[in-house]
């Protein structure tokens, strides 16, 4: 019966694991709902901001803001947004894969790379890889505040303004739906909008008070809002990815338990059969 006992203790330990994954699934599900609400609430601002910037890039202004001028690329910056915690399936791994492929492509052209890591996973990953991390932010929690991000973003903005980097990309997860999240790399600076025929003609804004000042504050806000939106969206992604991962872990645990139970029953049956045949053989011998 020793085999049966071992199997029983195994079943017990897997059941405990299943309880944990089940609990994590439910926690992630409830957090996901809140994170999604937050994401949809902040989305209009980021979208409208993008629209305004798109219009702006079509304006024929007398002075172009440095953030809007394409330069020869010698050094690029990446803002990589990941989660703080693991156990969320392939979410972060996929993001790193995509980032790395893009970085290698830049590297082959002899372009140097700076990284801003947001989220503990990104901080650890890029430290391990020996990337040039210029700023980092982690432990933002489930309700990140824009204040906590401004500092790290400013590092990149200053670097761009001073000409240290010539392009800025943001890598984060895009929330498609609960089942799918896709890692995306978006170019933030220099800003460029898609072609719009309506805005082809020669026009410019009236700027109040003056164009430099207003463009400064507008573009600053634009980058901040894009990064903030990326972080908020990433949290929604993290929660739904964790929910899915934990759900499949719970299901797998259930499968293993039912397999082990069949094995246990078989072992028990075999032991009983053996006992009976021993008794019968013993009785026949008497």
């Amino acid at each position, binding site marked *: 019966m020793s085999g049966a006992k071992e199997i029983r203790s195994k079943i017990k330990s897997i059941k405990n694991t299943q309880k944990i994954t089940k609990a994590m699934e439910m926690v992630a599900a409830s957090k996901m709902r809140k994170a999604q609400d937050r994401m949809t609430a902040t989305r209009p*601002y980021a979208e409208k901001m993008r629209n305004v910037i798109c219009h702006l890039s079509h304006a024929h202004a007398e002075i172009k803001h440095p953030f809007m001028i394409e330069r020869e690329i010698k050094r690029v910056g990446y803002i990589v947004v990941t989660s703080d915690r693991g156990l969320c399936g392939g979410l972060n791994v996929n993001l790193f894969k995509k980032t790395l492929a893009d970085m290698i492509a830049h590297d082959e052209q002899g372009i140097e790379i700076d990284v801003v890591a947001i989220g503990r996973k990104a901080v650890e990953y890029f430290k391990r890889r020996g990337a040039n991390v210029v700023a980092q932010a982690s432990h933002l929690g489930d309700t990140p505040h824009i204040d906590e991000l401004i500092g790290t973003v400013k590092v990149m903005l200053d670097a761009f303004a001073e000409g240290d980097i010539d392009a800025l990309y943001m890598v984060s997860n895009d929330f498609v739906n609960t089942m799918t999240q896709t890692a995306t790399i978006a170019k933030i600076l220099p800003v460029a909008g898609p072609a719009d025929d309506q805005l082809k003609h020669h026009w410019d804004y009236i700027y109040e008070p003056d164009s430099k000042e207003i463009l400064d504050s507008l573009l600053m806000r634009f980058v901040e*809002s894009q990064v*903030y939106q990326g972080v908020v969206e990433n949290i929604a992604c993290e929660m739904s990815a964790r929910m899915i991962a934990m759900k499949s872990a719970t299901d797998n645990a259930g499968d293993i338990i039912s397999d082990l139970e069949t094995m246990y029953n078989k072992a028990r049956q075999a032991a009983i059969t053996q006992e009976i045949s021993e008794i019968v053989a013993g009785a026949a011998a008497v």
Partner: protein
Amino acid sequence: MAMTIHLDIVSAEKEIWSGPATMVFAPGEMGELGIAPRHTPLLTRLKAGEVRVRDQRDAEESFFISGGILEIQPHVVTVLADTAIRADDLDEAAALAAKQRAEEAISDQKSDMDYATAKAELAEAAAMVETIKKVRGRR
């Protein structure tokens, strides 16, 4: 039918208005702006104050914004507000309290809060009180 202009008011937290308007009034940094359809493109910063919207049925709605950026295209107006609240939801008592706090912070030299922040807060609170008064007066 009257000509309309599409107006979006969004704050960092949520979208507060999206739809057609016949006239929009906003507190620009250089002075109050009245925006009718086909306004020339304009980009300005906004002060704390009241944004008024006149819709197609000639009804007016008021919003309080704490500052932000205004973009005007001939057929689209976008208000990117730092925070936006429907004027009817403003809390007069809270606004007055905030104003008083800010005034105290300015007069109290030993306070940790620096002068510029206090001044900005006072301007915001004062604008809020002003908006409430205006909305009350119109009713």
